[in-house]
């Protein structure tokens, strides 16, 4: 990658934001953090990331989902089309479904929620970086 990619991390847990910052900065990403969807939208006024890392389990439980819908539907294309990777343990701990299950037992990511990937918490730093890189490559 010629220029450093920019990442917006949205998570209500500041420890997660800081840890992700460490991981991402080690791979030369430019990182900004936001503790809530409101803060994230405010950040987006001045900072246009190449990818958003989003936690779903923010205080009200589903705020992350609302963030996705709002960004996709109410913002101009340059923001609405930013790829999002959901970083959460939610599909382990709740039975909210992200993927429709195919008859052959495989899954099709992203058909239910317009996001580009899911990473379970706690994530392996290596896995996380690989996944972000994949999404960015696909998107550019």
């Amino acid at each position, binding site marked *: 990658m010629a220029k450093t990619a920019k990442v917006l991390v949205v998570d209500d847990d500041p420890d997660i934001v800081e840890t992700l910052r460490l991981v991402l900065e080690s791979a030369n990403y430019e990182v900004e953090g936001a503790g809530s969807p409101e803060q994230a939208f405010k950040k987006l006024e001045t900072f246009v990331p190449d990818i958003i890392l989003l936690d779903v389990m923010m205080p009200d439980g589903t705020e992350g989902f609302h963030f996705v819908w709002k960004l996709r539907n109410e913002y101009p294309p340059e923001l609405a089309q930013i790829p999002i990777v959901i970083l959460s343990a939610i599909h382990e701990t709740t*039975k909210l479904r992200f993927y429709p299950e195919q008859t052959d037992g495989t899954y099709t990511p992203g058909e239910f929620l317009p996001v580009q990937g899911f990473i379970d918490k706690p994530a392996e730093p290596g896995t996380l970086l690989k996944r972000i890189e994949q999404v960015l490559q696909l998107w550019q």
Partner: protein
Amino acid sequence: MTEITEHELERDNRWFIRLRWLAAAGIVVAALVAGGPLGYPIPVWDLVALGVFVAAYNVLLREAEKRLPRGEGQRYRAAMVLANVQIAADLIALAVLVHLAGGVENPFAVYFVFHTIIASTLLSRTAAFAQATLASALYAAVVFGEYYGYLSHNRIFESRGPAYTLLDVAGHVAVLGSALYATVYLTSTITQRLRQREQELAAALAEVQRQANACEIARTGLQETQAMQLHYMRRVSHELRAPLASIGMMLRVMRDGLTGDVPDKLRQTLDRAEARTETLLDLVDDLLTLSRVREAPLQEPMAEVSLPQLAEVAIDTLADIAANKHVTVSASFPPGLPPVCGQRDGLHTMLVNLLGNGIKYTPPGGSVTISAELEPSGEAVWLHVRDTGVGIAPEDIPRLFDEFYRTASARESQIHGSGLGLSIVKAIVQAHGGEVRVESEVGRGSTFSVRLPACRPAQTTSEDQPCPA
């Protein structure tokens, strides 16, 4: 009509024995007064003897009443016999009295009615009719016997002339009056008792109703408490999970050298810390799963679940773990196996737990096999997960499905686990109305078998027909 209770029967027996003393005294006094000052031509001493006879058999009755046998049903039957005997004895005594004191002329015949009322209150319906028949027969024997001359007839009114005297009339009125008063006394006493019983019954019924309401309130309270406990458990687990996930991630960041160089000793320590965090996370996940599956019966509807598909997904989920451990996992199903009725996610969790256990406790080179068969009745499918692992000691089997229970060999082998996996399996199977069994041989392996309701073909054609819960 229900029969009189043993308690009432005995009480009435005693009551009539007490009344009979009065009757015996009454006969003696009436004979002396009528034959003496009133000058009726009656056999006074025969009547006095009758009074003494009544008193004498009353002594016998009282003694018999005191000596009723103790045994349950035996005592009741004996008390019933006593009641029949005493009424019959009274009827005979009354017939003798009527015969001695004028036969058909004697107004005391109305006391046959009185005795019949007593019989009706005490005895079974059949016995009461029998006593009424006895009374009628005795009276008929006396009056017809006297009429046809088989018995002597003591004239007490006609002997003194063709017309009744004022005394005769008054005597009739007095006898009828006494019979009426005795009847009122008897029936009102019995009625009062009945009303009292009715009130007691109504009170008892109200009490039962009140207790039933209290039970219902307690039951609702218990359900609410249970729901709150589950909610609380989920909440706590979530709250625990978030910081644990944070810690886990930070440890990995450190271990991977993102915060600086990692000397060997630090790396080892970080690895240990990370492993413990992982264990703790597994425990929290299991707690969450357990609380979820215990709520599940209320939430998710049942659907058709294909077991081969379920097995494929489960094997896929655990493929890496099995490969790392060099344990072969396979599944084979008979053709035409019907789908089972269940909650897909729950069944997936169940199978992943059983399969995971199989892999965990099977040494490298071993295998875990999933199979199934339809029960001959066609109502249920048995799903088996067979491993060639360490096996379970017979003494561990009864407690195997208890929460947090881990077998001695599991603890010794230091394979980490929450001790909740099989509790989760059991909760899921129970939510499906199924059962889970285990067969095992130490050193040879274990087979876990789960019985799940089969979906019948009729149910597969219509979406409106939900599977039975």
